[in-house]
């Protein structure tokens, strides 16, 4: 299968699977059964479509398979059969149906890994083997994880609904966390894990679906902008040999200006509501980088300020580390190093902490300490792309791009 066919297939399945799942749950009232029927239909599509071509009406194709299978499986359960028989294609539904689906998959009573797997399967229409490959987990392990989650939904009666206003905030945070994790999983993956890279598409699609369904939630817009801003720089992130290129050394002419502008507009509209949140702030930081003509033109003053706001809303040692990196360019390596010293106990096992120290030691003219810190960082990361950069730095072969 060529990449183009693969991507098209993934897109068509994504656009249709969750619609179908939502309608089936609506008529049968049974999350687990409906979900199984959709999965069967998706598997059939992935078997037939690559050879036969994607049908003109993929929605009715999937619908027909799911309904036929449903009538088959549920023959004994008269109630379902009657309901399924009433189901018409194209499926009619309110926009809320898919929101219900998303909130149920990301219910806080389910473990995070299961929320992720269920969302991919139910909302994005991924198959269990695809999810297992993306997360480098054995297929049976992933299948068990999904089965257990569906059983818990059924046995503990996790409701299929959109949370009430008073719990919407924390529940939405949960959904956004799932999408953001998916994005990171794909974004940080490398050639060795090509399967995981598709997760970036899924994450962006989920964020844009959620934005469409909840247009007045600024944090949803913030996450969508954040994902799109990162993606707009994708072409510059790896060099011709597949090596990771750090932000400061990226060829900025490869960035997708149009995508950056559009994401900036999404973010600006969200900011008008004056309800800042961690995703909007992170997107604003990425936007600051995206707006700079070259690394030296970066508005560090503004970035440090945004990190201060971010730390205020969502304190975390990793955010603190990123603030220290920005501080280096505003106030010099010594100021940044003093900040880092306060994080030693929390981040000693985090590779970026040591990689950052290495950079600062170099800035302070202390190559021996820099080398030791790079070596420590190398010990702590399992990401091949990051390992490569660190190895190049240790051997003195990493090339920095000058600003023109």
């Amino acid at each position, binding site marked *: 299968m060529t990449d183009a066919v693969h991507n098209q297939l993934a897109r068509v399945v994504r656009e249709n699977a969750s619609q179908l799942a939502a309608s089936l749950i609506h008529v049968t009232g049974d999350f687990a059964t409906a979900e199984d029927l959709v999965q069967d239909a998706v598997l059939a599509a992935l078997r037939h479509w690559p050879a036969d071509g994607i049908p003109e009406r993929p929605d009715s194709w999937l619908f027909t398979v799911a309904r036929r299978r449903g009538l088959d499986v549920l023959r004994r359960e008269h109630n379902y059969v009657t309901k399924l028989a009433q189901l018409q294609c194209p499926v009619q539904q309110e926009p809320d149906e898919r929101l219900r689906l998303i909130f149920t998959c990301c219910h806080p*009573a389910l473990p995070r890994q299961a929320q992720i797997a269920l969302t991919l399967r139910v909302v994005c229409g991924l198959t269990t083997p695809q999810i297992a490959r993306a997360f480098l987990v054995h297929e049976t392990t992933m299948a068990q994880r999904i089965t257990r989650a569906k059983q818990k939904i059924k046995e503990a*009666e*996790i409701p299929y609904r959109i949370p009430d206003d008073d719990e919407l905030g924390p529940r939405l945070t949960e959904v956004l966390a799932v999408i953001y994790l998916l994005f990171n999983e794909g974004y940080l993956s490398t050639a060795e894990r090509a399967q995981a890279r598709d997760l970036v598409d899924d994450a962006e699609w989920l964020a844009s679906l959620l934005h469409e369904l909840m247009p007045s939630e600024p944090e949803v817009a913030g996450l969508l902008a954040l994902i799109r801003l990162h993606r707009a720089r994708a072409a510059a992130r790896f060099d011709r040999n597949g090596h990771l290129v750090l932000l400061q050394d990226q060829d900025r002419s490869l960035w997708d200006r149009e995508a950056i502008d559009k994401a900036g507009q999404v973010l600006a509209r969200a900011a008008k509501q004056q309800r800042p949140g961690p995703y909007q702030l992170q997107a604003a930081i990425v936007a600051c980088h995206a707006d700079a003509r070259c690394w030296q033109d970066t508005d560090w003053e503004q970035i440090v300020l945004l990190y201060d706001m971010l730390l205020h809303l969502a304190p975390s040692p990793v955010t603190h580390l990123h603030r220290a990196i920005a501080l280096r360019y505003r106030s010099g390596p010594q100021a940044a190093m003093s900040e880092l010293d306060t994080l030693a106990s929390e981040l000693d096992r985090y590779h970026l902490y040591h990689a950052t120290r290495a950079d600062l030691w170099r800035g302070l003219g202390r190559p021996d300490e820099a080398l030791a810190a790079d070596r420590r960082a190398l010990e702590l990361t399992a990401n091949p792309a990051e390992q490569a950069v660190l190895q190049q730095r240790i051997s003195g072969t990493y090339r920095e791009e000058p600003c023109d």
Partner: protein
Amino acid sequence: MKYVLLFVETEQFTSDMAAMSPSERERAYDRVNEWFANHADKLRSGSKLKPPETATTVRLDRGEPVITDGPFVEGKEVVSGYVEIEVADLDEALQAAKTWPGCPVVEVRPIAFEPV
């Protein structure tokens, strides 16, 4: 749907309670009573248990019943009571658990079936 809320006390909670002045303790009890009043329409039954030192465990999987002193798991977190509630779904049960003003941990478990 019926659920049991299992109330779990921690060592910290027990020592905090012990350190309270009589009036503080009275206020704490008032908050718990208020919770019971607010949830009266959902509550079916429940009990506060005596401390774990009073527990005796009987094991029936060793041939003869084996009787030992103490709760079945020795730990820093111990079940101290329970209530049974009847609500529409897990979200409603969680809502009740989230507002519980007593001990710091609540396990929410659906009831499978009850003895006839």
